């Protein structure tokens, strides 16, 4: 096992890939029997400081339907200067530049350690980074002020040649023209009217029929012509002032009404604007909103305050009258943005829901971020936002745009689909399965916004027939080709080629079992579950999952907000699911089964069971659920602290004990995106509910025999405990074993 564990880790580090099965069952029948599909979690742009990109272009297989990229698994005839494609077995000549190769003089892409390699494409125009701020002005004064400051701050983080644009909205939508001197100028749109892309471009004067003749020549910089997106270095001052002068939406909001917020139209215009000016160029639309869209297309709730925004209950009762229409609107926008390689971020800060449920596709389909907070005036938002502009070891932004992921497989495999922040490019091919898991029916996906942690689940199907066994020692290969726009404005291609052994399930079952990656499988299954939960009724998904899996994390997954909507608003569910579908394995696991650390005088910090029995009076607990970090002081500890022991020199160890979880939490906070909600509480504190709702309710008011005992804390819940769950499961497993 240890070897497999190492193997898995090694592979993950090198290729950013984790398979559910690391030895593959060699026939369709066997694969189906194994329940957990053959699948992998792929982190296409996993940070590889040790991997300098090569400055030339990849060599492609010449078969038009294949076009696989030369990789270490290819057989090479150095004398004939030929190489055989390991996917289609086409024999290809090396291009002229490769005349000098030999066994000792191999290009990088042929070396085994470069199973993942990155090429820099020199051709084509270099596109600057584009940031289009879409800002809600229907905010409270201090909220708006905080947001303005954050935005102004962000300007200083952008590279000087980045293009920025500003759209503000409230009752109306204003597209600000940033180039003009003196009078600040903006184009205003009615917030209630859905406009086609063409109309928007016409109205913004982006289609100037008189210009094309002149425009033809300076084609190299077509984007310079846009008045709405200007290099930050040119309009820095201007924009800073403009942001500074930004006023709250001036239209009066009468008592009992929500402000009229035209989020739908604003987004539509943002998409249309980029579509008209920078098609097929990476760009980032950043939507900052402080409430639900209340008018126009994409409206989520009416402006009457007495009518609350839809809840899960309403949705189940088919009582959310705007939901379908709004969702459709945002989906349409998301697809348009995705087609053009633009990603949409949503920063929604409000105490109530803001319509993330309807808008989620904008972020989900384009690879944009989704951030949910209570207010723009919180460190949660401020730091999260700042983190978007964080830089890697090379000083480049940790973001990539307009990526296309192409997957090629050897013949025994077919691609069933992908789950992640992507849209299908609808590229059919011989390696595309008819059975879809996730977004299927294609071998290519578009991922408009990527960062080093963006992770997709990719599902395969073994199509090899049982009666056509694969020769012993045969390997299946998969190649992932990710073309993207690097934040340094270069176009790059990252190629990862992986291979795994085939094994006959009947004779080598133990091999296969041993190579099972439980964590990856859990996350992959959970993703599938979440994917289905998005589109199907909750209980159905749970039942499906129950049928598929019987493991510990299942218990937590069932209780997680990804599948369970109880106690969560539709927005929250959308938010959680969004992140679950894009984070890498480690983070995903944390989301499914929060981590609980216990600090005490009894020894070093130790992970403990996520169980109510772990809640003890003399412990400090640190729980990380990905979205929240909770520090919980046990009853005794809390009393000590209240008594001020930590300030007494003779109790310095107590002070250290108190400090330890804080330091650990800080460490997590530093790395986490988005910023988790940071909660510091103690026994009996109201915020302790965050902890209590997560732990396994092994002790409740129902198990009277433990009531009042000093071990652990009872949880007031009707949820079944793990013990009960397991007992039930066992019974089921046995009874259905037939």
């Amino acid at each position, binding site marked *: 096992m240890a070897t497999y564990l190492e193997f898995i880790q090694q592979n993950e580090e090198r290729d950013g890939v984790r398979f559910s099965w690391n030895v593959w069952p060699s026939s369709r029948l066997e694969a189906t029997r194994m329940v957990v599909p053959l699948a992998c979690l792929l982190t296409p742009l996993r940070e590889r400081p040790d991997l300098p990109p090569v400055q030339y272009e990849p060599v492609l297989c010449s078969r038009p339907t294949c076009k696989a990229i030369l990789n270490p698994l290819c057989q090479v005839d150095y004398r004939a200067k030929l190489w055989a494609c390991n996917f289609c077995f086409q024999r290809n000549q090396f291009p002229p530049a490769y005349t000098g190769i030999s066994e000792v003089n191999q290009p990088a892409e042929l070396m085994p350690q470069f199973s993942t390699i990155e090429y820099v494409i020199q051709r084509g125009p270099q596109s600057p980074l584009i940031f289009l701020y879409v800002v809600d002005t229907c905010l409270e004064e201090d909220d708006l002020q905080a947001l303005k400051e954050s935005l102004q701050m962000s300007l200083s983080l952008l590279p000087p040649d980045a293009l920025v644009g500003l759209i503000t909205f409230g009752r*109306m939508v*204003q597209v600000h*023209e940033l180039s*003009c001197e*003196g*009078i*600040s*100028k*903006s*184009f*205003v*749109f*009615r917030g209630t*009217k859905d*406009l086609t892309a063409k*109309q928007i471009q*016409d*109205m*913004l*004067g982006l289609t100037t029929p*008189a210009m094309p003749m002149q425009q033809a020549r300076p084609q190299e910089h077509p984007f310079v012509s846009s008045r709405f997106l200007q290099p930050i270095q040119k309009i820095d001052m201007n924009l800073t002032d403009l942001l500074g*002068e930004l*006023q709250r939406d*001036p*239209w*009066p909001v009468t008592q009992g009404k929500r402000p009229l917020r035209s989020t739908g139209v604003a987004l539509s215009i943002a998409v249309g604007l980029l579509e008209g000016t920078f098609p097929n160029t990476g760009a980032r639309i950043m939507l900052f909103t402080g409430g639900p869209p209340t008018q126009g297309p994409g409206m989520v709730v009416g402006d009457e305050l007495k009518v609350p925004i839809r809840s899960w209950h309403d949705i189940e009762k088919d009582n959310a009258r705007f939901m379908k229409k709004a969702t459709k609107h945002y989906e349409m926008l998301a697809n348009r943005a995705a087609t053009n390689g633009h990603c949409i971020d949503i920063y929604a800060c409000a105490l109530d829901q803001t319509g993330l449920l309807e808008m989620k596709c904008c972020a989900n389909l384009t690879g944009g971020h989704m951030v949910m907070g209570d207010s723009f005036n919180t460190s949660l938002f401020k730091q999260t936002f700042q983190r978007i502009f964080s830089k890697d070891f090379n000083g480049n932004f940790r973001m990539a745009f307009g990526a296309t992921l192409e997957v090629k497989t050897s013949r025994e495999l077919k691609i069933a689909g992908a789950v992640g922040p992507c849209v299908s490019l609808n590229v059919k091919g011989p390696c595309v399965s008819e059975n879809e898991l996730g977004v299927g029916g294609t071998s290519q996906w578009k991922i408009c916004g990527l960062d080093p942690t963006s992770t997709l689940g990719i599902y395969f199907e073994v199509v090899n027939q049982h009666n056509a066994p694969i020769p012993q020692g045969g390997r299946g290969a998969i190649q992932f080709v990710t073309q993207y726009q690097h934040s340094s404005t270069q176009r790059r291609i990252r190629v990862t080629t992986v291979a795994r052994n085939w094994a006959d399930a009947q004779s080598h079952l133990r091999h296969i079992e041993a190579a099972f990656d439980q964590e990856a499988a859990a996350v992959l299954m959970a993703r599938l579950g979440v994917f289905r939960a998005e589109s199907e009724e909750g209980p159905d998904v749970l039942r499906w999952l129950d049928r598929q899996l019987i493991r510990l994390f299942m218990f937590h997954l069932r209780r997680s907000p990804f599948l369970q909507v109880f106690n969560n608003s539709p927005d929250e569910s959308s938010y959680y699911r969004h992140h679950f579908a894009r984070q890498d394995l480690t983070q995903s696991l944390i989301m499914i089964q929060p981590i609980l650390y216990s600090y005490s005088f009894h020894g070093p910090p130790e992970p403990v069971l996520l169980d109510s029995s772990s809640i003890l009076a003399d412990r400090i607990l640190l729980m990380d659920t990905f979205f929240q970090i909770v520090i919980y002081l046990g009853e005794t500890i809390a009393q000590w602290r209240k008594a001020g022991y930590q300030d007494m020199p003779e109790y310095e160890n107590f002070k250290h004990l108190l400090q330890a979880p804080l330091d650990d939490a800080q460490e997590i906070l530093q790395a986490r995106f988005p910023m988790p909600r940071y909660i510091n509480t103690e026994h009996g504190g109201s915020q302790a509910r965050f902890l209590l709702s997560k732990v396994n309710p092994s002790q409740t008011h129902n198990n009277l025999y433990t009531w009042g005992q000093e071990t652990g804390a009872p949880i007031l819940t009707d949820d079944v405990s793990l013990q009960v769950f397991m007992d039930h499961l066992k019974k089921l497993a046995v009874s259905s074993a037939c």
Partner: protein
Amino acid sequence: MNVNQSAPPVPPFGQPQPVYPGYHQSSYGGQPGSTAPPTHYGAYNGPVPGYQETLAPGVSRAPPSLGAPPATTAQTPCGQAAYGQFGQGDVQNGPSSTVQMQRLSGSQPFGSAPLAPVVSQPTVLQPYGPLPTSSQVTAQLAGMQISGAMAPAPPTLGLGYGPPTSLASASGSFPNSGLYGSYSQGQAPPLSQTQGHPGAQPPQRSAPPQASSFTPPASGGPRMPSMSGPLLPGQGFGGPPVSQPNHVSSPPPQVLPPGTQMTGPPGPPPPMHSSQQPGYQLQQNGSFGPGRGPQPNYGSPYPGAPTFGSQPGPPQPLPPKRLDPDAIPSPQLNELPPQQKTRHRIDPDAIPSPIQVIEDDRNNRGSEPFVTGVRGQVPPLVTTNFLVKDQGNASPRYIRCTSYNIPCTSDMAKQAQVPLAAVIKPLARLPPEEASPYVVDHGESGPLRCNRCKAYMCPFMQFIEGGRRFQCCFCSCINDVPPQYFQHLDHTGKRVDAYDRPELSLGSYEFLATVDYCKNNKFPSPPAFIFMIDVSYNAIRSGLVRLLCEELKSLLDCLPREGRAEESAIRVGFVTYNKVLHFYNVKSSLAQPQMMVVSDVADMFVPLLDGFLVNVNESRAVITSLLDQIPEMFADTRETETVFAPVIQAGMEALKAAECAGKLFLFHTSLPIAEAPGKLKNRDDRKLINTDKEKTLFQPQTGAYQTLAKECVAQGCCVDLFLFPNQYVDVATLCVVPQLTGGSVYKYACFQVENDQERFLSDLRRDVQKVVGFDAVMRVRTSTGIRAVDFFGAFYMSNTTDVELAGLDGDKTVTVEFKHDDRLNEESGALLQCALLYTSCAGQRRLRIHNLALNCCTQLADLYRNCETDTLINYMAKFAYRGVLNSPVKTVRDALITQCAQILACYRKNCASPSSAGQLILPECMKLLPVYLNCVLKSDVLQPGAEVTTDDRAYVRQLVTSMDVAETNVFFYPRLLPLTKSPIESTTEPPAVRASEERLSDGDIYLLENGLNLFLWVGASVQQGVVQSLFSVSSFSQITSGLSILPVLDNPLSKKVRGLVDSLRAQRSRYMKLIVVKQEDKLEMLFKHFLVEDKSLSGGASYVDFLCHMHKEIRQLLS
């Protein structure tokens, strides 16, 4: 003209004076107070009725006398005596003519000459006399007579005009030449006259008193019958002496100076004449007055002819004489030496002259205030300066009627065909001497109204039962007087507090409206002005935008304010546009204005609320910055397309969002062809002219603008449009919204800053500063029996009674037509109450009430005696101009002629004493109807010349729709002022001359204005010194044709002319751009277009021709 005529009389002059006394005496006899006269007078008085009767016969005789007119000519020399009689006769006949006669006697023989013929005819008609109050005006046209002449006439016809029927053409041609000839001669005579005058002066003086004595009565009598009614007894007659002295003292002196001057000038007859005229006029007034006066006096009894009878006696003999010699053209003939007369042409001087009528009225009625206390008085002409004292009826500045005496029955009204209409200008500006209407505040209960018909409390309401109740004067409903309004009645049944309460004692007053009168039951907020500026290529290139922005900076300080408020309550906003709209946020807290572009023109909306409409003083810095930057921002624009409807829509939405009424000032340059609602295409097609489809040129292209206008009206959004077209912009369509919202349209074709700057800026300043009422509703209530049935003007009506005006300023006029729906009562008369509910410029909701009481008559003669031709023309022009929207222009023209003929025929048939069918007999009050009507018919809208564009026609059509009487008057009959004839020192306007080329002397300089255009015509042989002092060039040939600004030179002539130009401009609501036209120059064609008495190039008839034609029509109707 008079001058010419004057010549003949001269000789008689000396005699005439003597005659006069007798004359006067005879006619006015008693009044003059002259010793001799009294006897006559007394006789007259008594006899009056008898007189008339006696006269009648004379009249009847007159016809034969027609032939006589020539005789008159013959008489001329000796005729003086006859004149005296004639004078009377004149009086009866055609006041004007007679007047002239008298004048002649006084000063101008001219009058007499025409008179003679007239007289003869008049005699027939004259009968009126008796009623001082009611003045009948019977204008007889000598020429017409001629044509119409009896059997004997035929020859006359042959002579001058030939048969009346054929007259038009024949006369036209003939007269001209003949006339001219006669003129020249006539001029000569004047000299002699003038000379005679000087000589005669002493007698004149003696005469003046007489004349004056006459005049007063005349003035009192004839014109202001009503006036005379009250006045005459006391003042009139008694007055006369008094007035006489006045007259004498003032006029004579004046007269004399002129006379003296005249004498000085004798060499040049023309100046003499002109000078004389004024001078004389005074005297003449007297004489005129009498002339007219007599008629009225006599008037009442048509049969009055008998009065003449006695007088006629003498004329009669004359006629025969004349007939023989000169045939019919007597009028002219009279003046002209017999030889000339022989030419048979109609003497233009013999036909009613607008100038004369205006002058007479000025002289007669300009001096004393017009007191409105008496019901059914005909006010002075609009061309007369007079003061008004409100004593219970609305000032004529607010309401003028076509007739102040309404037929009691609809049958009568139908018979007469005289339209019953009132021209109402509810917010008319008053001269500083007159107080604006009092504002009455009845507190929370609001104005007191009749429960049934909702009429507002007014002086005509009858309080009964000791003041506890009142009976509505409109519907007779009896209402309770609310306790807080109760007041005791005095012994006459009048409330004790009647004179303390404007609504009980005045014709015009205002009520403060309560919240019930406000939209949504909310008091309105102060209105707003939004300036919407076209910044397309054309506007930028022409310099318009820069000019406008510069001007606005200072103009914004002059927004209208209420009363003595320190600061205007009006807020302002700015929009610029081409294919898209740019709104500006000029909130005072901003460092820089912000521009907001709305390109969704298909679905216009207002992008901002706060900061769009601002107080000028608070946001001054931002506004100034904005106005500085607008021209810069668009300096490089290449956008040539514009939108239009969305601009209005935007303004309207802005007002809606701000929940206030207001006004949009649109500055627009081109046909809106950009893709947007209200997009227009060029549909100008001159081939449609004179076809059945011509009407489409006046109709809007699309219904979108009507819909938009409706929304605007609902919001109280008035639109003023300034157009700067370089080519066709489809004014007919663009004007729809301004028209329906009570806005104004200004058009500056081919605008160039250098040439048109002053005109535009002046119009703009005036337009911005003028006081406007917003979101107004006007309702005209009438007493039972008549009903307002039709409305003309710039407004919108969603039902048949309420005139909705998004905005109403002091220039806008609404013409209302009434029809009978029941019998009227002679005793109670007819009442009009015009109530205007509006929002003042400070946002106060008010009701302005105008009341007017009219007489009712059972005799048609009363109707014809109390008409006002100017008002009639105003109505008819508006009626016709609306007609062209739906009917072919020819149909409209024919209908006008027919109606006019019917009116006159009805008069002839029912009111004039029997006479030869060959005589054209016009009621005194309507004697100018033909000439004015001809002007209407010739106007660009109804008969376009080749150079008149479709846009011009639509523009004029639109303008006329809301003109008041004074404006239509001068618009259709332009004023032509000779500049060098009167002494330089004289500060008054020189007397006008008739708008005919014949009246132009090539040695003189003239100003011509019609309210829109202003020409300075320079004769080819004008003195070099004049050229030098006016244009600062040495010769005529060096004058730049088309010059629009006179050089500022420091000499009396230059100062005077420029001063005159300024004062003319000051009188008009629009700035008139001056155009200098040289005789024989290309531009002269343009100028000649305005000489409306001449044949026009586009086929319009000359006055004389038209008169003949009219006569023919009348005769046909009569037969």
